[in-house]
């Protein structure tokens, strides 16, 4: 695997780009679909092909045996299982909270007990307008299917990965879904993969804001970032706005790492945050 491969919707993923870890099942990320081959050739061993449904760069993760498409800056979000999203509670019933992942789309359901350590008595009492950081469990099939999200891994009963659950305080900024995916990748992946994402903004902000109390961040694949700087006391509001401005500006102008560093320095100076 040498250069990054760019796929267009309908393009097949070449077999030599698939992760070589043979034993574990292959995980498909967003933007890819498994289709049966229309005209099976005798030469091909399997009857299925992987096809891209979005345009973007193919990215493979050998360790997790996963493959996904890094899409560019689009705004529309289509829920895919295992995505982390920031959802807004709309209303609740006896069993479920009805949440909004994207505005103007049918509500996703979040079980009242789908929180870490939640029982009938200890479950969080969420009101309309509250935010939760959750994982997409299933998206269902066919028309009228409900998207189900959860703040807990149903198998282990823990909130995996950490940090899932209600989000208190802070501020939400809107970004493109492609940028959200890159942010997640940049913060979770080892250094070799950060090159694909090309994002240094979070590291840079982390370094600069460490002295004023640091910040908490949650990135939702649905194009939302939640930022909270409540540790920064007097600087809390300005630091939050500064982070939000950095992220939206980088998303909008597609800045490279050098420009990202410059932007962070400039915006922090503008917002009068000493670092």
């Amino acid at each position, binding site marked *: 695997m040498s250069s990054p491969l760019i796929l267009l919707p309908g393009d097949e993923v070449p077999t030599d780009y698939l992760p070589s870890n043979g034993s574990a099942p292959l995980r498909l990320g967003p933007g890819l679909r498994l289709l049966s081959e229309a005209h099976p050739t005798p030469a091909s061993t399997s009857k299925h092909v992987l096809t891209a449904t979005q345009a973007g760069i193919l990215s493979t993760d050998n360790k997790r045996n996963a493959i996904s498409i890094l899409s560019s800056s689009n705004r529309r979000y289509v829920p895919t299982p295992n995505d982390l999203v920031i959802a807004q509670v709309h209303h609740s019933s006896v069993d479920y909270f009805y949440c909004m992942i994207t505005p103007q789309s049918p509500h996703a359901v979040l079980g009242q007990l789908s929180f870490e350590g939640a029982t009938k008595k200890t479950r969080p009492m969420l009101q309309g*307008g509250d935010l939760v950081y959750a994982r997409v469990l299933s998206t269902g099939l066919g028309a009228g299917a409900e998207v189900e999200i959860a703040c807990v891994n149903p198998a282990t009963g823990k909130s995996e990965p950490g940090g899932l659950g209600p989000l208190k305080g802070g501020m939400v*900024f809107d970004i493109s879904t492609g940028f959200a995916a890159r942010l997640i990748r940049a913060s979770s992946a080892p250094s070799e993969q950060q090159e694909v994402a090309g994002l240094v903004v979070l590291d840079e902000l982390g370094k600069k804001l460490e002295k004023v109390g640091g910040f908490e961040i949650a990135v939702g694949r649905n194009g939302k970032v939640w930022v909270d700087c409540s540790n920064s006391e007097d600087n809390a*509001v300005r630091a*939050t*706005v500064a982070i939000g401005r950095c992220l939206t500006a980088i998303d909008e102008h597609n800045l490279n790492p050098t420009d990202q560093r410059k932007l962070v320095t400039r915006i922090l100076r503008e917002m009068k945050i000493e670092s």
Partner: protein
Amino acid sequence: MNKEAALSVAERDFILDALREDVRLDGRSADQLRPLTLSFGEEYGHVKVQLGKTSLIVRISAEVAKPHDDRPFDGIFSIAMELTAMGSPAWENGRQGDFETYVTNVLDRVIRHSNALDTESLCVLKGVSCWTIRADVHITGYDGNLIDASCIGVMAGLQHFRRPDAVVKEGQVIVYGIDEKVPVPLNITHKPLSVTFHTFDEGKLVILDATRKEEQASEADVVIGLNNAGDVCYLSKFSGSPVDAMVFVTKTTVALEKVKELNGIIDKALQADLAKRAKGGLAEQARAENDRLIG
């Protein structure tokens, strides 16, 4: 649905907290506009407006029609605006919401009722034919402050538009094509623009040119329409919580400053476009002198 999705509690609280510290989400000050860019299309009266992330296209068109019976000396001017799904997923095609009615009404009052376009100059032959000028506003992106952006678009469009020349010969109306005779600009009497303010925290905090999120978190809005000379031609506070009368007084001064600034940007863009058209345009072709060197 035809309704903007509600803001989360966190966002609403944060916007208010930030404004109390005089901080806005995009780093602007309370009385600062977002960057405005105007671009013009190939044809006269085709304007694209970009105000921050709010963008819209205005088309001005003209046709000859019969004037209204009660006003035989007047031409007809109308502003048409429709909020379609192209602008925001919250809007539905073909269904008129309160917001649409409100914005159309304000545009009508600020531009049409203040007589920005002299309709008498549109008369061709008394009671028989006149020009009908129509401004179509298409929203292509919505991030708050639709009223001001549309006002800018319509006013810039009216100043940019050139209608075909028409003459009356022996009781017959003859309309010359754009390429036959140099088209005529519209008669603009004054240049009114609206400036929208939003209030927060029981009317104590007032900001202008709010984004969509700020609009949703606000308590009330105040629209002031005025021209370069400072003549107030429109003032409204339709809904929301009460606003102190002093806000109107102090903010009118701010609005005047902003209107002058905006009109300056519009003039500059118009002149740049005119200069571009002058090269290789009809005026150049119709020039009597030639490029030959004499002597």
